[in-house]
Protein backbone atom coordinates (compact mmCIF):
# COMPACT_ATOMS: atom_id res chain seq x y z
CA UNK A 1 0.00 0.00 0.00
CA UNK A 2 1.03 3.60 -0.47
CA UNK A 3 1.18 6.20 2.24
CA UNK A 4 2.18 9.82 2.45
CA UNK A 5 4.08 10.78 5.55
CA UNK A 6 6.44 13.46 6.76
CA UNK A 7 9.73 12.18 8.11
CA UNK A 8 12.12 14.75 9.54
CA UNK A 9 10.27 17.55 7.72
CA UNK A 10 10.43 15.82 4.38
CA UNK A 11 7.16 14.74 2.76
CA UNK A 12 7.45 11.23 1.40
CA UNK A 13 5.24 8.97 -0.68
CA UNK A 14 6.12 5.43 0.24
CA UNK A 15 5.18 1.91 -0.71
CA UNK A 16 4.82 -0.21 2.40
CA UNK A 17 3.37 -3.55 3.33
CA UNK A 18 0.49 -3.90 5.74
CA UNK A 19 2.56 -5.93 8.13
CA UNK A 20 5.46 -3.44 8.23
CA UNK A 21 6.11 -1.69 11.51
CA UNK A 22 7.09 1.95 11.60
CA UNK A 23 10.54 0.74 12.69
CA UNK A 24 10.83 -1.32 9.51
CA UNK A 25 9.66 1.65 7.47
CA UNK A 26 12.38 3.82 8.95
CA UNK A 27 15.26 1.35 9.00
CA UNK A 28 14.60 -0.91 6.04
CA UNK A 29 12.73 1.33 3.62
CA UNK A 30 14.29 4.71 4.40
CA UNK A 31 17.65 3.49 5.70
CA UNK A 32 17.39 5.66 8.80
CA UNK A 33 19.37 3.33 11.03
CA UNK A 34 19.67 5.75 13.93
CA UNK A 35 16.45 4.22 15.23
CA UNK A 36 17.43 0.90 16.78
CA UNK A 37 15.84 -2.44 17.41
CA UNK A 38 16.38 -3.83 20.88
CA UNK A 39 13.52 -6.11 21.81
CA UNK A 40 10.58 -6.98 19.64
CA UNK A 41 7.51 -5.77 21.47
CA UNK A 42 7.86 -2.29 22.89
CA UNK A 43 9.77 -3.25 25.99
CA UNK A 44 13.19 -1.65 25.78
CA UNK A 45 12.64 1.72 24.13
CA UNK A 46 15.50 1.52 21.59
CA UNK A 47 13.05 2.13 18.73
CA UNK A 48 11.54 5.32 20.15
CA UNK A 49 10.62 7.99 17.60
CA UNK A 50 8.37 11.02 17.82
CA UNK A 51 4.98 10.95 16.12
CA UNK A 52 3.51 14.44 16.16
CA UNK A 53 6.21 15.30 18.74
CA UNK A 54 5.17 12.51 21.13
CA UNK A 55 7.43 9.52 21.83
CA UNK A 56 6.11 6.14 20.73
CA UNK A 57 7.64 2.71 20.24
CA UNK A 58 8.09 2.40 16.48
CA UNK A 59 8.52 -1.38 16.67
CA UNK A 60 4.87 -1.80 17.67
CA UNK A 61 3.47 1.06 15.63
CA UNK A 62 2.12 -0.11 12.27
CA UNK A 63 3.81 1.65 9.38
CA UNK A 64 0.42 2.60 7.96
CA UNK A 65 -0.20 4.68 11.07
CA UNK A 66 2.43 7.09 9.71
CA UNK A 67 -0.07 8.17 7.06
CA UNK A 68 -0.50 11.93 7.33
CA UNK A 69 1.67 12.08 10.43
CA UNK A 70 4.83 13.96 11.25
CA UNK A 71 7.64 11.58 12.31
CA UNK A 72 10.88 12.72 13.91
CA UNK A 73 13.87 10.41 14.19
CA UNK A 74 17.36 11.10 15.51
CA UNK A 75 18.41 11.99 11.97
CA UNK A 76 16.04 14.95 12.19
CA UNK A 77 17.52 16.34 15.39
CA UNK A 78 20.23 19.00 15.38
CA UNK A 79 22.54 19.42 12.46
CA UNK A 80 25.09 16.78 11.73
CA UNK A 81 27.96 19.04 12.44
CA UNK A 82 30.22 19.26 15.41
CA UNK A 83 29.19 22.84 16.09
CA UNK A 84 25.48 22.53 15.54
CA UNK A 85 24.36 19.77 17.80
CA UNK A 86 20.99 20.22 19.45
CA UNK A 87 21.55 21.43 23.05
CA UNK A 88 20.33 18.05 24.30
CA UNK A 89 22.94 16.27 22.19
CA UNK A 90 25.65 18.72 23.20
CA UNK A 91 24.88 18.26 26.90
CA UNK A 92 24.81 14.48 26.59
CA UNK A 93 28.24 14.63 25.02
CA UNK A 94 29.55 17.06 27.63
CA UNK A 95 28.14 15.08 30.57
CA UNK A 96 29.43 11.69 29.37
CA UNK A 97 25.79 10.65 29.48
CA UNK A 98 26.13 7.57 27.29
CA UNK A 99 28.57 4.76 26.65
CA UNK A 100 27.72 2.27 23.92
CA UNK A 101 25.36 4.75 22.28
CA UNK A 102 22.69 2.24 21.35
CA UNK A 103 19.97 3.86 23.48
CA UNK A 104 21.20 7.40 22.88
CA UNK A 105 18.99 8.29 19.89
CA UNK A 106 15.91 7.34 21.90
CA UNK A 107 17.11 9.25 24.94
CA UNK A 108 17.64 12.36 22.79
CA UNK A 109 14.13 12.08 21.34
CA UNK A 110 12.25 11.54 24.61
CA UNK A 111 14.17 14.49 26.07
CA UNK A 112 13.31 16.65 23.07
CA UNK A 113 9.63 15.88 23.41
CA UNK A 114 9.73 16.55 27.14
CA UNK A 115 11.45 19.92 26.83
CA UNK A 116 9.10 21.00 24.09
CA UNK A 117 6.13 20.37 26.35
CA UNK A 118 7.77 21.31 29.62
CA UNK A 119 10.75 23.67 29.26
CA UNK A 120 11.54 23.60 33.00
CA UNK A 121 11.16 20.01 34.13
CA UNK A 122 12.03 18.83 37.60
CA UNK A 123 14.55 16.02 38.04
CA UNK A 124 11.67 13.64 38.73
CA UNK A 125 9.90 14.69 35.56
CA UNK A 126 13.05 14.05 33.55
CA UNK A 127 13.42 10.60 35.11
CA UNK A 128 9.78 9.88 34.29
CA UNK A 129 10.28 10.94 30.66
CA UNK A 130 13.38 8.75 30.25
CA UNK A 131 11.83 5.75 31.99
CA UNK A 132 10.74 4.07 28.77
CA UNK A 133 14.27 3.74 27.45
CA UNK A 134 16.45 1.08 29.06
CA UNK A 135 20.14 1.85 29.29
CA UNK A 136 22.37 -1.01 30.28
CA UNK A 137 25.71 0.83 30.35
CA UNK A 138 25.10 3.73 32.69
CA UNK A 139 23.36 4.57 35.93
CA UNK A 140 21.02 6.94 34.02
CA UNK A 141 22.01 9.88 36.22
CA UNK A 142 24.23 11.51 33.60
CA UNK A 143 21.38 11.40 31.11
CA UNK A 144 19.17 13.11 33.68
CA UNK A 145 21.85 15.70 34.37
CA UNK A 146 22.32 16.34 30.65
CA UNK A 147 18.60 16.89 30.04
CA UNK A 148 18.34 19.32 32.95
CA UNK A 149 21.38 21.19 31.66
CA UNK A 150 19.91 21.29 28.16
CA UNK A 151 16.70 22.76 29.55
CA UNK A 152 18.74 25.60 31.01
CA UNK A 153 20.63 26.18 27.77
CA UNK A 154 17.44 26.17 25.75
CA UNK A 155 15.73 28.63 28.06
CA UNK A 156 18.68 31.00 27.74
CA UNK A 157 18.60 30.54 23.98
CA UNK A 158 14.93 31.40 23.98
CA UNK A 159 15.57 34.56 25.97
CA UNK A 160 18.26 35.59 23.50
CA UNK A 161 15.88 35.08 20.60
CA UNK A 162 13.40 37.43 22.22
Amino acid at each position, binding site marked *: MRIRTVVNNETLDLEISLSNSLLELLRDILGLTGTKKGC*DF*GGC*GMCTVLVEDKPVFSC*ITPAWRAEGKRITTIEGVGIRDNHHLHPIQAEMLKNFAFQCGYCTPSMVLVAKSLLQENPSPTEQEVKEALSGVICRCTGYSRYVKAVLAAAETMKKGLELDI
Partner: protein
Amino acid sequence: MFNPIELRKPSTLLEAVSDLATYGFDARIIAGNTALYELAAQGGLDDVHILIDSSRLGLDYIRSGTDGRLHVGATTTFSQLAKNKHCLQGRNAALGEAASRISPPQIRNMGTIGGSISIGLPFLDMPVTLLALDAEINVMSKDGRKTIKIDDFFVDYFTTALNPEDLITEIVFPEEDGSSEKKEEERGGNSQRSVGFSAFIKIGRTTVDFAVINCAVCLEIERHESKSKSPLVEKARVALGCVGNKPIRRRDIEALLENSELNRATIESAALLPVDFEPSPSIHASPSYKKKMITVSVREALYTLLDRMNSATPIS
Protein backbone atom coordinates in the same frame (compact mmCIF):
# COMPACT_ATOMS: atom_id res chain seq x y z
CA MET B 1 1.58 -16.65 10.88
CA PHE B 2 -0.04 -13.24 11.19
CA ASN B 3 -0.61 -12.06 7.65
CA PRO B 4 -3.08 -9.20 7.32
CA ILE B 5 -4.24 -8.65 3.77
CA GLU B 6 -6.48 -5.63 4.04
CA LEU B 7 -6.70 -2.45 6.03
CA ARG B 8 -10.09 -0.82 6.47
CA LYS B 9 -10.07 2.83 7.40
CA PRO B 10 -13.64 3.68 8.36
CA SER B 11 -14.30 7.33 9.07
CA THR B 12 -17.75 6.85 10.57
CA LEU B 13 -19.08 4.51 13.20
CA LEU B 14 -21.57 3.11 10.69
CA GLU B 15 -18.79 2.18 8.30
CA ALA B 16 -16.84 0.63 11.16
CA VAL B 17 -19.67 -1.56 12.41
CA SER B 18 -20.52 -2.52 8.86
CA ASP B 19 -16.92 -3.70 8.37
CA LEU B 20 -17.12 -5.63 11.61
CA ALA B 21 -20.39 -7.22 10.54
CA THR B 22 -18.88 -8.20 7.21
CA TYR B 23 -15.65 -9.68 8.49
CA GLY B 24 -16.46 -10.83 12.03
CA PHE B 25 -13.74 -13.05 13.48
CA ASP B 26 -11.59 -12.35 10.44
CA ALA B 27 -11.11 -8.75 11.51
CA ARG B 28 -9.51 -6.91 14.38
CA ILE B 29 -9.97 -3.33 15.42
CA ILE B 30 -6.62 -1.60 15.73
CA ALA B 31 -6.41 1.02 18.45
CA GLY B 32 -3.11 1.62 20.27
CA ASN B 33 -1.56 -1.54 18.82
CA THR B 34 0.56 -2.00 21.94
CA ALA B 35 -0.23 -5.71 22.30
CA LEU B 36 -1.05 -6.73 18.74
CA TYR B 37 2.39 -7.73 17.51
CA GLU B 38 3.14 -9.75 20.62
CA LEU B 39 -0.17 -11.60 20.27
CA ALA B 40 0.64 -12.14 16.61
CA ALA B 41 4.07 -13.57 17.41
CA GLN B 42 2.46 -16.02 19.80
CA GLY B 43 0.23 -17.21 16.99
CA GLY B 44 -2.91 -15.66 18.45
CA LEU B 45 -3.84 -13.75 15.30
CA ASP B 46 -3.25 -16.32 12.58
CA ASP B 47 -6.93 -16.15 11.57
CA VAL B 48 -7.01 -12.37 11.35
CA HIS B 49 -6.78 -10.98 7.85
CA ILE B 50 -8.55 -7.65 8.06
CA LEU B 51 -7.38 -4.73 10.15
CA ILE B 52 -9.86 -2.00 11.01
CA ASP B 53 -8.24 1.28 11.95
CA SER B 54 -10.15 2.98 14.74
CA SER B 55 -8.19 6.22 14.67
CA ARG B 56 -10.53 8.10 12.31
CA LEU B 57 -13.70 7.49 14.24
CA GLY B 58 -13.44 10.58 16.41
CA LEU B 59 -13.47 8.52 19.57
CA ASP B 60 -10.62 10.26 21.37
CA TYR B 61 -12.55 12.56 23.65
CA ILE B 62 -13.15 13.16 27.32
CA ARG B 63 -16.22 15.22 28.06
CA SER B 64 -18.77 15.92 30.69
CA GLY B 65 -22.10 15.03 29.15
CA THR B 66 -25.34 16.88 29.49
CA ASP B 67 -26.39 13.97 31.68
CA GLY B 68 -23.75 15.04 34.18
CA ARG B 69 -21.74 11.92 33.50
CA LEU B 70 -18.19 11.65 32.20
CA HIS B 71 -17.92 10.24 28.70
CA VAL B 72 -14.58 8.89 27.51
CA GLY B 73 -14.19 7.88 23.87
CA ALA B 74 -12.79 4.41 23.31
CA THR B 75 -9.59 5.52 21.56
CA THR B 76 -8.64 8.06 24.21
CA THR B 77 -5.03 7.40 25.16
CA PHE B 78 -3.70 6.92 28.68
CA SER B 79 -1.72 10.15 28.25
CA GLN B 80 -4.95 12.03 27.62
CA LEU B 81 -6.58 10.45 30.66
CA ALA B 82 -3.58 11.18 32.85
CA LYS B 83 -3.74 14.89 32.03
CA ASN B 84 -7.45 15.58 31.93
CA LYS B 85 -8.85 17.37 34.95
CA HIS B 86 -12.09 15.39 34.82
CA CYS B 87 -10.08 12.23 35.36
CA LEU B 88 -7.95 13.56 38.16
CA GLN B 89 -10.49 14.62 40.72
CA GLY B 90 -13.38 13.49 42.83
CA ARG B 91 -15.13 10.32 41.91
CA ASN B 92 -12.95 9.72 38.85
CA ALA B 93 -9.53 10.38 40.40
CA ALA B 94 -8.66 6.67 40.12
CA LEU B 95 -9.01 6.89 36.35
CA GLY B 96 -6.28 9.48 35.98
CA GLU B 97 -4.14 7.79 38.61
CA ALA B 98 -4.35 4.44 36.95
CA ALA B 99 -3.59 5.97 33.56
CA SER B 100 -0.55 7.76 34.90
CA ARG B 101 0.75 4.56 36.51
CA ILE B 102 0.62 2.75 33.18
CA SER B 103 4.20 2.86 32.08
CA PRO B 104 6.36 3.86 30.35
CA PRO B 105 5.37 7.17 28.68
CA GLN B 106 5.57 5.70 25.17
CA ILE B 107 2.88 3.19 26.09
CA ARG B 108 0.74 5.96 27.60
CA ASN B 109 0.99 7.81 24.30
CA MET B 110 -0.11 4.77 22.33
CA GLY B 111 -2.44 2.65 24.44
CA THR B 112 -6.16 3.39 24.62
CA ILE B 113 -8.84 2.87 27.23
CA GLY B 114 -10.99 0.86 24.84
CA GLY B 115 -8.13 -1.38 23.77
CA SER B 116 -7.04 -2.11 27.29
CA ILE B 117 -10.46 -3.40 28.34
CA SER B 118 -11.35 -5.21 25.14
CA ILE B 119 -8.24 -7.41 25.20
CA GLY B 120 -9.44 -9.09 28.40
CA LEU B 121 -6.22 -9.19 30.37
CA PRO B 122 -6.96 -9.23 34.10
CA PHE B 123 -3.68 -7.68 35.23
CA LEU B 124 -3.95 -4.44 33.28
CA ASP B 125 -4.76 -1.27 35.19
CA MET B 126 -7.85 -0.06 33.32
CA PRO B 127 -10.14 -3.07 33.86
CA VAL B 128 -9.85 -3.00 37.65
CA THR B 129 -10.29 0.77 37.70
CA LEU B 130 -13.39 0.76 35.53
CA LEU B 131 -14.83 -2.01 37.67
CA ALA B 132 -14.44 0.08 40.80
CA LEU B 133 -15.83 3.18 39.12
CA ASP B 134 -18.97 1.33 37.99
CA ALA B 135 -18.41 2.33 34.40
CA GLU B 136 -20.72 1.48 31.57
CA ILE B 137 -19.43 0.37 28.22
CA ASN B 138 -21.30 1.78 25.25
CA VAL B 139 -21.11 -0.56 22.32
CA MET B 140 -22.30 -0.28 18.78
CA SER B 141 -22.88 -2.92 16.17
CA LYS B 142 -24.79 -3.23 12.93
CA ASP B 143 -27.84 -4.07 15.02
CA GLY B 144 -27.69 -0.86 17.00
CA ARG B 145 -26.34 0.44 20.25
CA LYS B 146 -26.20 -1.23 23.63
CA THR B 147 -24.73 -0.62 27.02
CA ILE B 148 -22.82 -3.27 28.96
CA LYS B 149 -22.46 -2.85 32.71
CA ILE B 150 -18.84 -3.22 33.76
CA ASP B 151 -19.86 -5.95 36.20
CA ASP B 152 -20.93 -8.03 33.20
CA PHE B 153 -18.11 -7.05 30.87
CA PHE B 154 -15.12 -9.19 31.85
CA VAL B 155 -15.59 -12.91 31.34
CA ASP B 156 -12.27 -14.76 31.20
CA TYR B 157 -8.71 -14.44 29.95
CA PHE B 158 -8.94 -12.79 26.53
CA THR B 159 -12.71 -12.96 26.72
CA THR B 160 -15.21 -10.17 27.32
CA ALA B 161 -18.94 -9.74 26.81
CA LEU B 162 -18.22 -8.25 23.38
CA ASN B 163 -19.30 -10.06 20.25
CA PRO B 164 -17.00 -10.09 17.23
CA GLU B 165 -19.18 -7.50 15.50
CA ASP B 166 -19.21 -5.14 18.50
CA LEU B 167 -17.31 -1.87 18.63
CA ILE B 168 -16.71 -0.09 21.92
CA THR B 169 -17.57 3.55 21.31
CA GLU B 170 -17.21 5.03 24.75
CA ILE B 171 -16.93 4.39 28.44
CA VAL B 172 -19.32 6.32 30.65
CA PHE B 173 -18.70 7.09 34.28
CA PRO B 174 -21.42 7.94 36.80
CA GLU B 175 -22.01 11.52 37.79
CA GLU B 176 -18.99 13.09 39.36
CA ASP B 177 -20.79 13.76 42.60
CA GLY B 178 -21.79 10.15 42.65
CA SER B 179 -25.51 10.31 43.26
CA SER B 180 -27.87 8.77 40.82
CA GLU B 181 -31.28 10.10 39.95
CA LYS B 182 -32.84 7.11 41.57
CA LYS B 183 -31.22 7.61 44.90
CA GLU B 184 -32.39 11.17 45.02
CA GLU B 185 -35.92 10.04 44.37
CA GLU B 186 -35.63 7.52 47.19
CA ARG B 187 -34.75 10.30 49.53
CA GLY B 188 -37.88 12.08 48.51
CA GLY B 189 -36.11 14.92 46.81
CA ASN B 190 -34.02 15.63 49.84
CA SER B 191 -31.25 18.01 48.86
CA GLN B 192 -28.66 15.91 50.66
CA ARG B 193 -26.71 14.16 47.95
CA SER B 194 -23.74 11.85 48.15
CA VAL B 195 -20.27 12.65 46.90
CA GLY B 196 -17.84 10.20 45.34
CA PHE B 197 -14.12 9.61 45.80
CA SER B 198 -11.85 7.05 44.26
CA ALA B 199 -8.25 5.86 44.49
CA PHE B 200 -6.00 3.51 42.55
CA ILE B 201 -3.13 1.56 44.08
CA LYS B 202 -0.60 -0.46 42.14
CA ILE B 203 2.03 -2.75 43.57
CA GLY B 204 4.75 -3.86 41.17
CA ARG B 205 8.27 -5.17 41.45
CA THR B 206 9.93 -2.11 39.96
CA THR B 207 8.73 1.36 39.07
CA VAL B 208 8.00 0.55 35.44
CA ASP B 209 6.12 -2.72 35.64
CA PHE B 210 2.83 -4.46 35.23
CA ALA B 211 1.01 -4.78 38.53
CA VAL B 212 1.58 -7.68 40.88
CA ILE B 213 -1.63 -6.49 42.53
CA ASN B 214 -3.70 -3.52 41.47
CA CYS B 215 -6.61 -2.21 43.44
CA ALA B 216 -9.18 0.49 42.79
CA VAL B 217 -11.72 1.68 45.30
CA CYS B 218 -14.62 4.04 44.83
CA LEU B 219 -16.61 5.27 47.81
CA GLU B 220 -19.69 7.41 47.77
CA ILE B 221 -20.20 9.19 51.05
CA GLU B 222 -22.94 11.25 52.49
CA ARG B 223 -22.25 14.88 51.82
CA HIS B 224 -21.44 16.43 55.11
CA GLU B 225 -20.85 19.93 56.21
CA SER B 226 -18.42 19.47 58.99
CA LYS B 227 -15.02 17.91 58.86
CA SER B 228 -15.20 16.84 62.44
CA LYS B 229 -17.45 13.92 61.68
CA SER B 230 -16.16 10.76 60.01
CA PRO B 231 -17.63 10.40 56.54
CA LEU B 232 -20.52 7.97 56.22
CA VAL B 233 -20.04 5.52 53.37
CA GLU B 234 -23.18 5.03 51.34
CA LYS B 235 -21.82 2.95 48.56
CA ALA B 236 -18.53 1.13 48.11
CA ARG B 237 -16.91 -0.61 45.19
CA VAL B 238 -13.62 -2.36 45.89
CA ALA B 239 -11.98 -3.97 42.87
CA LEU B 240 -8.83 -6.08 42.52
CA GLY B 241 -6.81 -7.15 39.49
CA CYS B 242 -4.13 -9.83 39.04
CA VAL B 243 -5.99 -12.37 41.14
CA GLY B 244 -7.67 -14.58 38.59
CA ASN B 245 -9.11 -14.70 35.11
CA LYS B 246 -10.82 -11.30 35.48
CA PRO B 247 -10.82 -8.37 37.85
CA ILE B 248 -13.04 -9.02 40.84
CA ARG B 249 -14.94 -7.07 43.47
CA ARG B 250 -14.44 -7.65 47.18
CA ARG B 251 -18.11 -7.63 48.11
CA ASP B 252 -17.26 -8.61 51.69
CA ILE B 253 -15.24 -5.43 52.10
CA GLU B 254 -17.88 -3.37 50.32
CA ALA B 255 -20.56 -4.71 52.68
CA LEU B 256 -18.45 -3.87 55.70
CA LEU B 257 -17.82 -0.34 54.47
CA GLU B 258 -21.36 0.52 53.41
CA ASN B 259 -23.31 2.34 56.09
CA SER B 260 -20.18 2.60 58.20
CA GLU B 261 -18.27 5.69 59.10
CA LEU B 262 -14.90 5.69 57.37
CA ASN B 263 -12.29 5.93 60.08
CA ARG B 264 -9.18 4.16 61.18
CA ALA B 265 -11.04 1.32 62.84
CA THR B 266 -13.27 0.71 59.82
CA ILE B 267 -10.30 0.79 57.45
CA GLU B 268 -8.30 -1.66 59.50
CA SER B 269 -11.15 -4.11 59.85
CA ALA B 270 -11.99 -3.79 56.15
CA ALA B 271 -8.41 -4.36 55.06
CA LEU B 272 -7.97 -7.25 57.43
CA LEU B 273 -11.02 -9.17 56.28
CA PRO B 274 -9.52 -12.53 55.37
CA VAL B 275 -8.81 -13.12 51.72
CA ASP B 276 -10.90 -16.23 51.35
CA PHE B 277 -9.84 -17.06 47.83
CA GLU B 278 -6.59 -18.13 46.25
CA PRO B 279 -5.17 -15.50 43.90
CA SER B 280 -3.74 -17.07 40.76
CA PRO B 281 0.03 -17.41 40.89
CA SER B 282 2.23 -15.79 38.27
CA ILE B 283 5.94 -15.80 37.66
CA HIS B 284 5.90 -12.41 39.36
CA ALA B 285 4.35 -13.45 42.65
CA SER B 286 3.03 -16.37 44.66
CA PRO B 287 -0.58 -16.54 45.88
CA SER B 288 0.66 -16.05 49.42
CA TYR B 289 2.43 -12.78 48.59
CA LYS B 290 -0.52 -11.62 46.51
CA LYS B 291 -2.86 -12.19 49.43
CA LYS B 292 -0.70 -9.99 51.62
CA MET B 293 -0.56 -7.34 48.91
CA ILE B 294 -4.33 -7.37 48.62
CA THR B 295 -4.54 -6.38 52.27
CA VAL B 296 -1.83 -3.75 51.85
CA SER B 297 -3.38 -2.23 48.75
CA VAL B 298 -6.93 -2.12 50.10
CA ARG B 299 -5.72 -0.47 53.28
CA GLU B 300 -3.63 2.05 51.37
CA ALA B 301 -6.52 2.86 49.05
CA LEU B 302 -8.88 3.44 51.98
CA TYR B 303 -6.46 5.65 53.87
CA THR B 304 -5.83 7.60 50.67
CA LEU B 305 -9.58 8.07 50.32
CA LEU B 306 -9.97 9.17 53.93
CA ASP B 307 -7.24 11.78 53.38
CA ARG B 308 -8.96 12.98 50.24
CA MET B 309 -12.32 13.24 51.95
CA ASN B 310 -10.82 15.15 54.82
CA SER B 311 -9.01 17.60 52.59
CA ALA B 312 -11.97 18.07 50.24
CA THR B 313 -13.78 21.33 50.69
CA PRO B 314 -17.07 20.66 52.45
CA ILE B 315 -19.87 21.84 50.24
CA SER B 316 -23.15 22.76 51.71
